[in-house]
């Protein structure tokens, strides 16, 4: 949605988290690249919700089950625990009310998978601290005035929100600037500093 497709290394991480034949809802499915990947590699029963009509039409033309809708307003129409996994990939920061959206994901899915760009990454901090400019990086290519990303958070912020919502972090992965996973043994502050993107597997306790 807000990050270039070529840089979507998080997609592989998300795919690895999902067992074959799961029921998956992809919120913010874009042009359907993740759903297609999941259908091909995991034979999932996949559905999508996408804001842009162009994205939806592309998905449906590719044979994917996708509807036009807004994560902020339309998740309430889904039944409790209707899916094994609900994926929110690079979309959380673009929602108007990330807390409500995350709460809905945990209600609809047995598990939620959330990936987002980490605003605590050192490049972001560097840009603000030294240059005094809002960061524009290859992951976050927008200027402050035209960005769809209105609710940035850091990995630490996100962990706090999960606690507030009573969600258990079953697995978390941080990816560095090269798309490499950061070692599990590293402490949170290290992830928060060097992780450019994060992928969380959550479950409501």
């Amino acid at each position: 949605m807000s990050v270039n497709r070529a840089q979507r290394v998080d997609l592989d991480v998300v795919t690895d988290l999902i067992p074959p034949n799961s029921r998956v809802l992809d919120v913010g499915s874009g042009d359907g690249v993740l759903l297609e990947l999941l259908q091909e590699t995991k034979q999932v029963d996949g559905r999508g919700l996408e804001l842009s009509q162009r994205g939806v039409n592309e998905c449906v033309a590719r044979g994917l089950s996708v509807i036009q809708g807004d994560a902020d307003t339309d998740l309430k129409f889904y039944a409790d625990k209707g899916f094994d996994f609900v994926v929110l990939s690079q979309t959380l920061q673009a929602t108007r009310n990330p807390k409500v959206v995350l709460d809905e994901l945990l209600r609809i899915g047995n598990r939620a998978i959330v990936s987002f760009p980490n605003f605590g990454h050192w490049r972001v901090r560097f840009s603000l601290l030294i240059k005094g400019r809002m960061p524009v990086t290859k992951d976050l290519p927008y200027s402050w005035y035209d960005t769809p990303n209105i609710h940035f958070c850091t990995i630490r912020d996100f962990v706090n929100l999960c606690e507030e919502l009573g969600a258990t972090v079953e697995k978390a992965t941080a990816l560095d600037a090269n798309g490499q996973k950061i070692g599990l043994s590293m402490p949170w502050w290290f992830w928060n500093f060097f992780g450019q993107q994060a992928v969380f597997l959550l479950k409501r306790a």
Partner: protein
Amino acid sequence: MRDRMGTDMVAQRAARTKDEVDHPSSPVLQFGSDMPLKLDAGTLLSPFQIAYQTYGTLNDARSNAILVCHALTGDQHVANTNPVTGKPGWWEVLIGPGKIIDTNRFFVICSNVVGGCLGSTGPASTNPATGRPYGLDLPIITIRDMVRAQAMLVDHFGIEKLFCVLGGSMGGMQVLEWAASYPERVFSALPIATGARHSSQNIAFHEVGRQAVMADPEWHGGKYLDFGKRPEKGLAVARMAAHITYLSEAALHRKFGRNLQDREALTFGFDADFQIESYLRHQGMTFVDRFDANSYLYLTRAMDYFDVAADHGGRLADAFAGTRTRFCLVSFTSDWLFPTEESRSIVHALNAAGASVSFVEIETDRGHDAFLLDEPELFAAINGFIASAARARGLGL
């Protein structure tokens, strides 16, 4: 308009329409007294008949059948030259050999709805009890009645489960009714430019049309065929009013603007000065030659009565509870007869029911009738949906 077309031609066409009522050029399936059609009105229709067309070949597993449901003024001639008008089938852009709905792969069925006037039992059909046309003696027909009759036709072909049911407008209503009434018989459903109920505004437009028909003295309380008459003026006005609702303000402006019809200046009279007037008059006059006025009353009433949620305790999601049918809904941005919100509410209900659903809204200024036109995005959506459903059904090529 009438003069230009020639009275002979009109008379011929009207005669052909009349022939098509009891003895259509389509194949006909007769249901005798042992197989009555149970109507929502609480009575039985018996005997009755269904006129239909088929295209392609049913495979051995009987798993490649697609049922196409026609709209209010459509008919069973979906992909062949229409015997009354001589025009191509109403969805020939979509259906045929090598087309998006490929009749080399699929067995396509389209039947005239019960209550219609092109060969299935309707108000113009001869009532076997009297030997005269039914007229208003035919009980009120509902969308569910039409679908029940179609199910009997599908039974006749020995088809347990249809691969796909699709249609637009009133055809879309039948698709929804199929999915709600016979979920286990519908593998995939494609309702286009439709709603789960007729809105107050839509009922209002239909009422205007019906009143126009009934106000025509030639209507004779619905017994016009007994007098050898037809309420042409009333039906033409009904069609003119309805036709406006099938278009959009933008499309009308684009096509006609305030252009004058074959004249340089206003005539200061009530002649058809404007192109749009002439166009509507033409639409009205050609319609009466191919459609029965009472049939128009019955079919508009069927649409008005349609309300899937009401049939399921008031909650639309309950109509589709536990469904395994794959749905794809399509709406058009400029359709003010069945606006996108109507489709969206069905999508939400299907979501709540946990159904597999796709939903495409197509940007066009061509209004409700866009579903009948060459709309590349519509075709891309149908193509993608049918192809993926075919893979899931094991019908891949």
